[in-house]
């Protein structure tokens, strides 16, 4: 009885996934989870009925996708950790559904990437490479975050930008992250530009930062504290460099600090040598 109800809820969830509002989806999900609890299938065990396990897994997968659509990263992470138990089960107990699994894992990777948690990203990646029978880079869901990470690391921001455009994203849930990523790469570019260019013309900054209009450029420049003069953006670091006096004083400071370090070290060596001899 409860099982049939659960199947109903799930089909409802799946069929209207994109149109459902988050509150509706979550009420459906909590209903599904209650049913799971009645069936005693909330957590996976090897002895359970395989059909039930499949249902439970699907519930969590739908939950994960729904929470991503609602940009609720905490709920998503919770679903992912609940799912991990199901994914660890051997294939003869729970027949795997690689597509959904890769989708969820890919989203999780992307989430870690946007949050800047690179260590977890790479730990997860390492686990993927051990997973058998998966072409990690060839998979459209898994390959996407990996490619993005590589481009972000080497600095090919234009490729990241292109990859985030409509049609390039493997599925609609992935585009949720585009906004975050755009902001992220824009800051990255801005920080590099500050160091790399002495000045930039407004018109080309627009394309550099993937902004829509020059007005947006001016606004962005202001938010980062850049100086806009005669259609040129002048970066504050170059202004500081012009004030050569300040730098000299700093050089003096540096020297003093350095000699102090050398003296300290030498004294340290002498002391230790004495204890040795």
């Amino acid at each position, binding site marked *: 009885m409860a099982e049939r109800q659960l199947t109903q809820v799930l089909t409802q969830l799946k069929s209207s996934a994109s149109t459902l509002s988050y509150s509706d989806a979550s009420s459906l999900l909590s209903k599904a989870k209650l049913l799971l609890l009645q069936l005693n299938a909330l957590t996976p065990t090897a002895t359970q009925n395989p059909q039930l396990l499949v249902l439970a897994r699907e519930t969590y997968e739908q939950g994960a996708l729904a929470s991503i659509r609602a940009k609720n990263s905490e709920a998503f992470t919770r679903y992912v950790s609940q799912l991990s138990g199901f994914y660890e089960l051997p294939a003869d107990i729970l027949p795997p559904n690689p597509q959904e699994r890769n989708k969820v894992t890919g989203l999780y990777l992307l989430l870690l990437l946007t949050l800047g948690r690179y260590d977890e990203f790479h730990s997860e990646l390492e686990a993927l490479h*051990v997973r058998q029978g998966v072409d990690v880079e060839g998979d459209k869901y898994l390959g996407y975050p990996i490619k993005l990470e590589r481009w972000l*690391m*080497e*600095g*090919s921001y234009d490729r990241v930008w292109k990859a985030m455009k409509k049609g390039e994203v493997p599925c609609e849930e992935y585009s949720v992250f585009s906004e975050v990523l755009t902001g992220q790469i824009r800051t990255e570019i801005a920080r590099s530009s500050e*160091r790399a260019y002495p000045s930039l013309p407004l018109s080309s900054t627009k394309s550099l930062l993937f902004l829509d209009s020059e007005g947006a450029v001016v606004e962005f420049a202001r938010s980062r504290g850049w100086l806009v003069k005669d259609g040129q953006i002048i970066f504050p670091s170059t202004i500081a460099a012009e004030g050569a006096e300040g730098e000299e004083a700093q050089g003096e400071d540096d020297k003093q600090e350095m000699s102090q370090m050398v003296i300290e070290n030498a004294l340290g060596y002498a002391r230790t040598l004495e204890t040795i001899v």
Partner: protein
Amino acid sequence: MPGKTPDKEPVENGGYRGGKDIDMKDNDLKPKGKKSVKDGDDEMTVVVPPSKAAQKQSSAPPPNDADGDVAMDDVDKADEGDVKVDPVVQAISDIKSNFALLERAVVLFDARFSLRALRSISSLRKRLTPEILAQVISETYSTSSSSSHVAKQLLAAIGQSEMPLGRSWAPEMEIDSEPKAPAKNGAKKESSKENKDVIPEIDVFLGILTQVLLYDNKQFRQGFEHSRYLSDRIQSLNRRSLDSLSAKVYFYYSLFAEQLKPLPPSPQSPIVSIRPTLLAALRTAVLRKDIDTQASVIVLLLRNYLLTSHIAQADLLVSHTQFPENAANNQVARFLYYLGRIRAIQLRYTEAHEHLTAATRKAPSSACALGFSQTATKLLLVVELLMGDIPDRATFRQPTMELSLKPYFLLVQAVRVGNLEDFETAIADHADTFRRDGTYTLILRLRQNVIKTGIRMMSLSYSRISLRDICIRLHLGSEESAEYIVAKAIRDGVIEATLDRERGFMKSKEVGDVYATREPGEAFHDRIRACLALHDESVKAMRFPMNQHRLELKNAQEAREREREMAKEIQDGDLDEDDLGGEFEGM
């Protein structure tokens, strides 16, 4: 207390290293499929030349009583005369000589004696056969109730597969052992004269020998069952004198688990199922301050987690446990290696580098631990590359490493020159090697380093270069990519340059004098610090003979008496100040 004489120490150290190294090799060579050594073990029941050296080594540790001398003679005779019989007798007596050590360990409550017994395993290992072990077992145990149960278990573990052999041999065996103690699998009710109880340490020691034997004969399933029984028994026995032995038991337990199907990367591997046992063992070991077990179980758990790529769990384990400071050197080396691996995966390269350097340095330099140092060196090389350093050329020239490091050498070359094409081909050609070494994902991260090096080369050779040229030279996708990449390189401090967007070129800044910066001073300081640390460590590692402090105490007592005398004499006015000074300096 039969104190060790100082001149015996080196021998023991040598034996110690040899003993642990074999395990290390097993541990680390396996993934690479170098089975030649182990295959040799199976056929080495009656090999003479290697066993001669091994026997000498093993007969050195037993205390200098008559037994040891006789054993020595036996070896020599074995070489000259009848080879076929003597090795068996020799092996049996060698095994039994360890019992004395174990008994002494219990009586004196000194773990070093059991360590010594454990060390001899490596030399016994080559000569171990089910027959020898069975004979030892049946000769050792009397019919007293508890021990015979243990012995039965042991015999079952080795006897199963040797059914035909065991049967033909059993009657003969009974005749052999009848005068001493009735074989337990024979007449059980007979009461023996020397009804001495066998201490549990000997049970466990024989259990370990059984583990070794089963492992060498590749009877992994049986070994696994036997180990489980053995570890349960250790936990129920709860004796402190078992500590160092139990470390060994867990070690083999987890080795067996790794060999069972489904093999490790799969989440259903038996290694997952032994985790609770290991964790429980760790908890008990920590509570009892049992350093040996603690160290080896931590290492085993880390290995366990890494095999199934549970990096997060491994990291948590490291952060929640404290690795014992004075653990055995080999365990420390292993621990550092695994730690370095975790850190490398987490992009904490500086820490990874530190741990891995220490691991390669601590790795025993003898040939039998070659597998470990090779594996550690490979990982170290990749981490160095990731940090932007170019590894030393000399590393690749070591004769023992040259062949296995070849793929890494090609990789380093590509990174050093900054040639993306060479890099891609090196990865494609050796992908399988890298995968097997578990460095593949790390190597994939190197791509950005190659690009950065390429840009640095460009910046050094040209004072001004167009972005289009950079794009063509480095095989980047487009000019825009090139621009972003160069900008990032400038921000990361890889190069000193500026970009001109309107005209599309990169202009390099004049390179400053490195010697005017603090860098050389820092490098110098680092090296000095390393030397000082080395000195400190070697001072700490020094061992002193047991009773030396008593001697000193005695000296101190004498000195005090002399002083008192002197004080008395001064009081009497017999001695003047100069004499006194001289006396003190003499002391």
